[in-house]
């Protein structure tokens, strides 16, 4: 029922949501990611839709807040010196000691993925959605979902190898 409402009331205003995101974030690619993230977020919370009379209004508020949060995070991370990160590195013996097993390592890697990639890998590899279903929910082409999924999976593998090899 709520999933039907999602399809009937939110998917048709995808362009409008993109427009709002584009205005706040300026960059087209970033706005597109933000829209997909918000759509997946809304899909996951379908059950709470009953509270809202107008889903379109609700979705508009969510995308606005989401983009503003994104902007804040972006500003904050730009302030930090990139080299600071690389110096802290991953081969720090204290960090190695903290990582007790591969499960913790993987959990950490997945947590650090970009929001959209995280949501997609979770839906595909844990909740067993097909790529087609995710494309329908996010209102994107199959290729776009595959590309994000592929990036996420490769990143998980590469980081895992990097962190576990001694």
């Amino acid at each position, binding site marked *: 029922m709520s999933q039907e409402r999602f399809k009937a009331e939110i998917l048709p205003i995808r362009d409008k949501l993109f427009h709002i995101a584009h205005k706040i974030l300026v960059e087209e690619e970033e706005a597109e990611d933000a829209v997909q993230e918000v759509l997946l977020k809304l899909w996951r919370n379908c059950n709470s839709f009953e509270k809202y009379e107008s889903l379109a209004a609700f979705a508009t508020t969510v995308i606005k807040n989401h983009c503003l949060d994104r902007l804040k995070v972006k500003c904050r991370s730009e302030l930090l010196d990139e080299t600071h990160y690389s110096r802290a590195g991953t081969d720090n013996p204290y960090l190695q000691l903290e990582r007790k097993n591969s499960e913790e390592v993987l959990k950490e890697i997945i947590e650090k993925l970009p929001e959209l990639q995280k949501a997609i890998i979770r839906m595909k590899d*844990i909740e067993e959605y097909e790529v087609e279903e995710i494309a329908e929910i996010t209102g994107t082409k199959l290729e776009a979902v595959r590309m994000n999924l592929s990036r996420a999976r490769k990143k998980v*593998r590469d980081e895992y190898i990097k962190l576990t090899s001694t």
Partner: protein
Amino acid sequence: MKLQIKHTISYSEADQIIERYYEGLTTVLEEKLLREFLSQRNLPERFEPEKAIFGYFANKKQKSVFSIHSFVRWASAAVLIITVISVELFSLKTEKNYAYINGKKITDIELVRSFAENSFKDISDDASVNETYNLDSKEIIKQQLGAFSE
């Protein structure tokens, strides 16, 4: 002795599926085959990252399935309790109704009614009582005996 024949894919098939997996091209079914393959022991070293990754996701999946299972278990226990209670209530309700009149247990509704009517008559003969409480004896008896016949 029971022989367990398990169909698993070959190393080269696994390599191919893994390649497709990283391109985001595998189906849920292919991933299931791969998961079974990777759950084997003594696999070559090159499968180690995928073994860990698939093991991690399988573990996460199990957790979510487990919570559904435990929900089903609790739900079935609740259904059982409700069934027991409703059966009890139903049998209580259908137990034969009775009234004690002068220390005797009487189950015949007509007999109870005539006794009741008689005793009401004694009261309603008294005009003052009737005025104060505006008693309609027949109606009261009917109400009281409502549960009796069911």
